[in-house]
């Protein structure tokens, strides 16, 4: 293992630990006990929240904004591909050329989608009003990381990818990228409420 790889691993470890700490801190805040007799199960709501509730038909944030929705999907598919490429590299696994090319393509598309989302944030008056420099920086860091990952897949030059992994891993717990953990917790809470209140059983056909 090279020094750069060791530092990368340490940065990733910091990131995982700090994100876990942030989640734990939020989770340890007081939470009133849901003492009302449930009208349905929390599980049914959680299954909905991570299943049918993720479909574009289930929420207007997707159905009213198809291009942004697709850009978001492509962006996050790129991030997953980048993660897979990083794990493979640090594990010393030699990727078959076809898989490397596939990951590289996904990261290229992801970086492009990220730039589209960044441009949207720059140009939309509402997003300008609600964005801090952290919002732009978080996006830009991920875009650069994806681009460096794609470069690594296409040229086998991993140094920029590892350097940007260190930057990304160090920064992730400090700003908006924290949502990579909090998304799942929030979605679970959303589903739990829908399930316990018996709303889930009635979610079909409400748009007709």
């Amino acid at each position, binding site marked *: 293992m090279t020094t750069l790889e060791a530092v990368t691993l340490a940065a990733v470890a910091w990131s995982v630990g700090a994100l876990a700490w*942030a989640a734990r*801190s*939020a*989770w*340890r*805040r*007081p*939470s*009133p*006990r*849901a*003492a*009302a*007799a449930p*009208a*349905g199960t929390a599980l049914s709501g959680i299954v909905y*929240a991570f299943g049918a*509730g993720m479909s574009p038909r289930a*929420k*207007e*944030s*997707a159905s*009213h*904004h198809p291009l*942004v929705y697709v850009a*978001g999907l492509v962006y996050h598919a790129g991030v997953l591909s980048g993660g897979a490429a990083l794990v493979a590299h640090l594990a010393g696994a030699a990727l078959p050329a076809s898989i490397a090319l596939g990951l590289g393509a996904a990261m290229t598309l992801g970086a492009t989608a990220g730039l589209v989302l960044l441009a949207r944030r720059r140009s*939309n*008056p*509402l*997003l300008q*009003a*609600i*964005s*801090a*420099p*952290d*919002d732009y*920086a978080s996006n830009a860091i991920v875009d650069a990381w994806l681009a460096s990952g794609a470069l690594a897949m296409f040229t086998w030059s991993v140094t920029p990818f590892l350097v940007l992994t260190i930057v990304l891993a160090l920064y992730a717990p*400090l*700003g*908006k990228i*924290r*949502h990579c953990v*909090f*998304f799942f*917790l*929030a*979605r679970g*809470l*959303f*589903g739990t*409420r829908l399930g316990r*209140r*018996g*709303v889930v059983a*009635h979610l079909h*056909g*409400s*748009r*007709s």
Partner: protein
Amino acid sequence: MSTGIPLTPAPAPPAPDAYRRRLASLEPETVARARAAFAALLTRDHAVHLDACVHCGLCTTSCHYALVDEDPRNSPAYKVHLVAEAFRQESSAWARMFPGWTGARPVDAELIGEWVDVLFGRCSMCGRCTANCVVGIDVPALVRAARGALAAAGLVPPELQSTVDAAVNTGNNMSITHDDWIGTIEWLEDELRAEVGDDTARLPLDECDADFLYVLNPREPKFYPLSIVAAGAIFHRAGVRWTLARDYFDVTNYGLFSGSPEAAATIARRLVDTTRRLRAKQLVLGECGHGFAANRWLAPEWLGEEPGFEVRSVVDVVADLIRDGRIELDPSRIPNLVTLHDPCNLVRNGGVIAPQREILARAVTQWVEMAPHGYQNYCCGGGGGQLSMTRFARRRLEAGRIKADQIRATGARIVAAPCHNCVDQLSEIGKEYALGIEVKTMCELVADALVRRP
């Protein structure tokens, strides 16, 4: 017998201008109180949701305020943003160190002014944004936390605060005195007897061991007494054992909207204690959306205990009575086309979605859904305390245009609304947008359709 209701009227709210002047020159202690209350009110759910929001703005097109006015402050995303700024300041040393970079902001006089304008004045806490958010961020809960901080500092808009104070001080939000309440019920009992043609029909008060205690919106004895007669006629025909309470009869809980958990708990406690005192098997909530969410779902959280009896909506009870054949309906008595409004706190946030549809299927000749409806319904615009906050009335009526357009598209002449607050807002937007509609509660429609006995 002591009723528990003080006979003194609620204190008059401060003049609106005094409130505005106070906001313009807040004392440091008041700001400090709001700041401390905000930190104390933040729960696990708030923290998780605030860190999960990705500031994408995609919820904007799901909010009726934002749909009628593109001002960024109307977007749910902006509302979350205003709370998130203060949350970062409160929760993260890193954010406090680099506030310009992270978007952290202390609760100060300027932010408080924005909270009042945006979180009180541009949100009916309907939760439609939550239903359509990428993540499922609980925007109404975040708005309530910030409102609660302002409540702790005495900065709730006075018209809303006076509604809460009336409920806390007099036992109901319209300061109806005990004598007026009892007198109204006695008078309405005569009306009921005439209506059902039976001298034994009753509006029972304080009867122990009934099947249920029925609580209602104080607007009913004050402005819509025939609503009480309608419920009484249904229960009489069905032969159920029910009771009203002599003291606490108010289903509403405006503590939910002022954000004060203390006020909300005080108000909720009374219905729990009254149900226990009368040994009623169930607490049945009259047609009130937020009253349902407050008493069915949130009261046990505020009180930290399970009620020990079932809490149901009257809509659910009436649907059961129809299904069980305990009342007979003649839909031909209501020949006009009816549409159904879904109160957000009963439906999307409450889970009572099917019974009102079962009722309409049996009670009226023809009815049609709005588009969208059910979980995806649009708020009428009257929730979140908006009906009380007269200073924001113009915005409320403008935001009601979305609902007005929905109603007009159905072609219905009658709008069924299982919530008295919604009835008021729908009646107002009916006039504002010249819809030519009549707005009725479910009980009123069912009472109209009851088969008359010779």
